[in-house]
C-alpha cells in the first residue's frame, strides 16, 4: 500500500508538473497572440473561410490568398471553402466551439444574424489609419451594424436582369434596352415562351425564392419587408411585389415549373431554355463558364415608380475567435487590396468594391455588359436586412412553390412567411462617421 501511495503521489507530482508546463505554454501563447498586448503578432499563418460555387471561384480566391506572403513575407493564408448554403450553418457551429477561421466571408444579408461573430474593425482601421474612401460607400454601410464595420467589402453590384441573347434572337424578340418597362418585360416573356422554352426564371439565381429586388421594383417601396425598423411582410407593398411575380407563373405561364432539385435555379438558365433571370455581376464567372450561349445584361425594367434595385455585396471580416487580429487585418488589407480585387474582377468573380478596380470586371465582361451594370448602379440602393434573415429566407423558399402555382394568394404567402419567420427588426448601420472620413492608409 505504501508503494502504491508513493506511486500515486509521484504521478500526481508529474501531473501537476505537466499542467504547470502546459499552463506556462498557454500563458506564453496568449501573451504573444493577444491583440491588446504592446507587441501584437503580425506574422504566422492566417486561416480564411469562405464560400464558393465552383472550382473556378475557388481558384480565384486561392490566387488572392497567395498574394498575402508577397506583401507580408511573414504572413501566409490558408483558405477553406464550402458552398454558400453550408457556409451559414458551418460558421455558427464553429463559433460555438471557438474554432472559426481568423478571416471569414460576410454577405450583407447575414450581418443581422451572424454579425455578432465578427470583430468590429473600427479600432484596427483607426490604429493602422486605413482608408475606406476607395470602397463603394453603400457596401461599407451594408456590412456595418450599430456603428461597427464588420467586414471590408470585396464586391458589390446592382441586381439586374440577365438574358439569353440566343433565345431572344431565335424568337425574334429585340434585346431589352435600358429604360424598358415591366409591361415590356411581361410581353417579352410571353413571346419567348413556347416549344419548351420559357420567358423567365421565377426565383433568384442560386436560390429558391421569389426576388425581393423585383418586389421593390414592382412596388416602389424600398425594403418592403421592413417598416419602421420592424419586420413586416404583410404590408401591401410586399404583397404587391410578390403578386405580380407570381402571376407570371400561375397566370401567364411564362416560367418553367418550379423544382426543388438541388441547383435547379442555377442550372435551369444554363440549359438555354429560359429567357431571363434576376442576377448580379458576381455570377459572371459561372455564367461564362457554364452557359453555351451569349448572355446579355440589362437594368431592371421600370415599375410603376421607375427603376429600383438593390446594391448587394459581401466582404471579409475578422472573427471573434481570431487570436492574431493585427496579423489578420494585414492579410485582410491584401485580400481586398487593389491587386487582389483587380484579379477577382478580371476573372468575373467580383465586381470590385474597391472602385479603382472596377474596370477589370468590364474587361472580362465586355463593354456592353459593363455599361449595363454602370447604368444599373446609378439607381441601385443599399438593402436593409433583418435580424431574422435566415428564418425569413427559409420561409420565403418553403412557400414559394405554393404562391407560384396559385395554391395560395400573395396575401396568404405574406401571412405564412410572417408567421414562420417570427419577429425581427431591420439592421441599421449606425453612425460610421468615426471611420468613414479616414484617409491616407
Amino acid at each position, binding site marked *: 500500500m505504501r508503494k502504491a501511495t508513493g506511486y500515486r503521489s509521484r504521478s500526481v507530482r508529474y501531473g501537476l508538473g505537466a499542467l504547470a508546463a502546459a499552463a506556462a505554454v498557454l500563458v506564453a501563447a496568449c501573451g504573444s497572440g493577444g491583440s491588446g498586448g504592446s507587441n501584437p503578432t503580425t506574422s504566422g499563418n492566417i486561416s480564411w473561410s469562405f464560400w464558393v460555387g465552383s472550382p473556378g471561384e475557388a481558384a480565384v480566391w486561392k490566387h488572392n490568398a497567395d498574394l498575402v506572403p508577397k506583401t507580408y513575407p511573414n504572413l501566409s493564408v490558408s483558405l477553406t471553402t464550402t458552398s454558400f448554403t453550408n457556409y451559414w450553418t458551418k460558421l455558427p457551429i464553429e*463559433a460555438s466551439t471557438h474554432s472559426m477561421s481568423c478571416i471569414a466571408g460576410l454577405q450583407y444579408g447575414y450581418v443581422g444574424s451572424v454579425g*455578432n*461573430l465578427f470583430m468590429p474593425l473600427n479600432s484596427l482601421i483607426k490604429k493602422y489609419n486605413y482608408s475606406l474612401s476607395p470602397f463603394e460607400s453603400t457596401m461599407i454601410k451594408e456590412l456595418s451594424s450599430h456603428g461597427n464595420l464588420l467586414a471590408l467589402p470585396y464586391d458589390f453590384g446592382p441586381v439586374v436582369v440577365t438574358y439569353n441573347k440566343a433565345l431572344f434572337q431565335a424568337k425574334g424578340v429585340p434585346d431589352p434596352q435600358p429604360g424598358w418597362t415591366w409591361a415590356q418585360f411581361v410581353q417579352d416573356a410571353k413571346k419567348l415562351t413556347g416549344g419548351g422554352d420559357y420567358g423567365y426564371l421565377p426565383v433568384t439565381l442560386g436560390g429558391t425564392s421569389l426576388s425581393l429586388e423585383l418586389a421593390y421594383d414592382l412596388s416602389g417601396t424600398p425594403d418592403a419587408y421592413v417598416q419602421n425598423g420592424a419586420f413586416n411582410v404583410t404590408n401591401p407593398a410586399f404583397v404587391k411585389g410578390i403578386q405580380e411575380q407570381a402571376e407570371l407563373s400561375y397566370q401567364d405561364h411564362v416560367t418553367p415549373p418550379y423544382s426543388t432539385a438541388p441547383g435547379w435555379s442555377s442550372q435551369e438558365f444554363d440549359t438555354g431554355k429560359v429567357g431571363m433571370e434576376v442576377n448580379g455581376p458576381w455570377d459572371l464567372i459561372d455564367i461564362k463558364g457554364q452557359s453555351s450561349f451569349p448572355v446579355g445584361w440589362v437594368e431592371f425594367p421600370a415599375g410603376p415608380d421607375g427603376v429600383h434595385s438593390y446594391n448587394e455585396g459581401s466582404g471579409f471580416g475578422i472573427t471573434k475567435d481570431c487570436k492574431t487580429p493585427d496579423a489578420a487585418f494585414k492579410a485582410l488589407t491584401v485580400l481586398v487590396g487593389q491587386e487582389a480585387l483587380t484579379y477577382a474582377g478580371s476573372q468575373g468573380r467580383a465586381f470590385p468594391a474597391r472602385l479603382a478596380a472596377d474596370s477589370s470586371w468590364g474587361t472580362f465582361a465586355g463593354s456592353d455588359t459593363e455599361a449595363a451594370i454602370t447604368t444599373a448602379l446609378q439607381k441601385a440602393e443599399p438593402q436593409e436586412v433583418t435580424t431574422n434573415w435566415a428564418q425569413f429566407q427559409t420561409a420565403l423558399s418553403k412557400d414559394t412553390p405554393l404562391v407560384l*402555382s396559385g*395554391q395560395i394568394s400573395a396575401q396568404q404567402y405574406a401571412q405564412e412567411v410572417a408567421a414562420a419567420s417570427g419577429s425581427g427588426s431591420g439592421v441599421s448601420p449606425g453612425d460610421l462617421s468615426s471611420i468613414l472620413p479616414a484617409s491616407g492608409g
Partner: protein
Amino acid sequence: MTSRTSVLESRSRAGLTGRPAPGRRPRRPNRDTRTAAGFLSFNLTGFTLFTLIPMALAIYVSFFNWPLQGGQTRFVGLHNYGSVLSSYGFWRIVLNVLYFVGAYVPLNLIVSLTLAALLGPRMRAVKGKAFLRVVFFLPVVTPLVASSLLWALIYNQNGIFNTVLGWFGLGPVPWLSSSDWSMPSIIIMSVWLGFGYNMILFVAGMTNIPDTMYDAASIDGAGPIRQFFRITLPLLSPLIFFGTLMTLITSFQVFTQAYILTNGGPGNSSTTLVLQLYDDAFQYFRLGDGSAIAVLLAFMILIVTGLMFILQRRLVHYEH
C-alpha cells in the same frame, strides 16, 4: 458447464492459470466478468460517449436558452417546451410525421414481406433469387444523400415518372412542388430505400422454418397461401416484430429525404420533426428549442415502442 469446469480445474492443477492451489473457491465468475467487461468496454465506451452523454446533454440543454452563436446561456426551465409546442406549424409537423409513419411502415412491411416470400426458400420456381436480393438490397447500402438527389431528378417536372405518365396521357404531377404530393413522394422514395433491409431479414427468417412443417401442411391439404398465413407468418412473427419496431423508430426520425427533396416544403407540408430540430438548432441557432424537440421526439418514440412491446405479447408467436 461441467466440461468447462473440469477443463479449468485441470488447467489450474497444471499450473496454467497461475492461481493458488485448489481448495479455495474458484474465481471464475470474476474472471468471466472481467472478460465480459473487456469485450463490452469498446461498445460501452462508444455508447457512453456518442449516445448516453449526448442524450443527457440534449436533455440538459433543453432547459436553457442556449444560443449557438454567442450570447448568454440562461436557465429557462420548461419554457423551450412551451415555446416549441406553441410555435407556428408545430402540430402540423407532428401530423406530418404521423402521416409518414402511418403510411411508410405498413408499406415497407408489405413490400418487404411480399418480396421475401417471392425470393424466399419456398419459391423454387423463381430464378436468380440471390441476384435479385442483392439488387433489392442495394438502396439500403447506397448513401442516402445520393439516393435523395437521384430521386429529386426522378420527381422533376421532366423526370422519369412524369415522362411515363405522359405516355398514358396523364400528369404531369407536381411531385415535390405541391403540398398534396410532397409527403407521398417522400414516402414512395423511403419505401424504395428501406424495404431491402426487412426483406433480407424476413428471407433469413423463412430459411429457418423447417420444411417438415410445410410438408405436414401439404399432406393436410393446405395450399401455398394458407401455408403462408398459417405457418410462415406466425413463425416469422418475432422477426416481423423486430423489423416493425426498427422501421417504426427510424421512420419517426426521418430527415435526409425531406431535407434533400423538399427541405420541408412547400409550406410545411413535408417538414418533419428532425428537420425542424435541424432548422431550429443549426439554421436559427436556437439550441434550446432544438433540444426540446429532440426530447419530445424521443418521448414519442418511447411511448410507441412501449405500446409495441405490449402488443407483441398478443401478436408475436415464440416457438418454445
